[in-house]
């Protein structure tokens, strides 16, 4: 017996399935007794047959009525065919079931009451914040629009050098937010630029502006928005800024805003 004819004639498979005539089966047994590759051929065929039988057995159990009209061994083959034919569908079903399970899990995770409530809370808060922000922007836009309009009845506080204990100048803050003007006269000084510093009665600086230049009337005009000022006592310090060197104090202007 040579391996080419054994392979070509499917001898091992015929032997395992009992299709080999007795004489030929005996010859093949004598051959494979000390032939490792033919032992492997027989073992592979047996393994396949065992697997198929098992498969067919399971399929026959699943569909017992299917085997009634066939001979038993043919019925097994038919059952196995059925099992294999149904396999892709079974895999798909498994996949669908897995996806459904994943989806359900995801829904459970994301759709839990607490999480949902928290998300809804966050959403509501965000909406509130957004609405507040929108209101602020609208108010700002209105202010800006108003600022672009010609300003009339602009409150002006005139600050002139005071000697001695002259009372502080006062100004009533406008009822509606708006600009107020500080008219500052530095007196007999002539610096290229000036610096004005407004402090409240606690000494905290409210604002400081530099590079102020005298207008044609020999005064400095500083405009401040009323929203940045609260009623109270203030002091405006004016310094002259020479071309070089340190600022030079020019005057102090007490004021009061009501």
């Amino acid at each position, binding site marked *: 017996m040579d391996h080419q004819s054994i392979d*070509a004639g499917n001898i091992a498979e015929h032997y395992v399935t009992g299709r080999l005539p007795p004489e030929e089966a*005996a010859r093949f047994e004598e051959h494979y007794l000390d032939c490792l590759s033919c032992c492997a051929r027989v073992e592979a065929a047996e393994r396949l047959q065992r*697997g198929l039988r098992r498969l067919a057995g399971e399929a026959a159990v699943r569909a017992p009525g299917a085997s009634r009209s066939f001979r038993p061994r043919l019925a097994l083959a038919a059952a196995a065919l059925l099992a294999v034919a149904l396999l892709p569908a079974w895999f798909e079903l498994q996949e669908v079931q897995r996806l459904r399970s994943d989806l359900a899990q995801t829904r459970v995770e994301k759709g839990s009451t607490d999480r949902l409530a928290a998300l809804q809370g966050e959403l509501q808060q965000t909406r509130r914040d957004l609405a507040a922000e929108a209101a602020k922007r609208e108010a700002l836009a209105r202010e800006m629009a108003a600022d672009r309009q010609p300003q009339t009845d602009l409150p002006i506080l005139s600050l002139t050098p005071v000697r001695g204990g002259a009372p502080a100048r006062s100004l009533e803050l406008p009822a509606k937010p708006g600009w107020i003007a500080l008219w500052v006269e530095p007196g007999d000084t002539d610096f290229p630029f000036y610096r004005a510093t407004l402090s409240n009665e606690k000494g905290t600086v409210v604002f400081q502006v530099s590079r102020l230049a005298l207008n044609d009337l020999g005064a400095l005009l500083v405009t401040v928005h009323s929203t940045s000022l609260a009623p109270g006592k203030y002091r405006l310090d004016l310094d002259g800024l020479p071309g070089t060197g340190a600022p030079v104090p020019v005057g102090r202007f007490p004021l009061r805003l009501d």
Partner: protein
Amino acid sequence: MEPEASRDEATGDDVADLARRIQAGDAAAESELVARFSRGLLLMLRRLVQNPALADDLHQETLALVLGKIRRGEVREPEKLNGFIRSTARNLFIADRRKEARYRALDEDSEEGGHPAPALTDRGPAPLERVLAVEEARQVQRLLAELRYDRDRQLLLRFYLSDESKEVLCADLEIEPERFHQVLFRARERLRELWERAEKRQRFFAGAQKIVGRIGGDPSRSK
């Protein structure tokens, strides 16, 4: 492994020489005979007996008997040693069957005499074998589904599971009778290739799992 591979197609002269060496008292030759015939003999006996435990017993008995006969020069045609081993194994099996039949008859007699029946031996597959069989079936199912041609699937299933003749299979599956062996061979080869690929994958994943287990597993298990 190389010497084993070269023994695939043993010649009569080859086995005759082995028998002569055994008869001459060469212990290495005896070991060689056992190594050479053990797997095939066990395979044949397991097919014949359908009981792994009994097959193992007969396997040992056969080898012992054959070696004894060779040593004593009782093998008339050493060049036909394969046939001698085969017939010895079959004869031992037949003798065992007869012996069992006699015991059964004696048991039945004693049962009639009022003695309790002896416990029956479980000749079914062991639990591990059952698990392996299930796994094997799954593997076969997967691989059959992977086969590209439905005719290959049908042919393999009907060839291995039914007792239909070649003529019936050829007629049903529209195979020319002279091409039957070739078609069956190709179907088998395709399945074998798939099987080998699947086994390679399994080995790869088993190896990877071991490595991952060693890296990420419970440190106490590596002790």
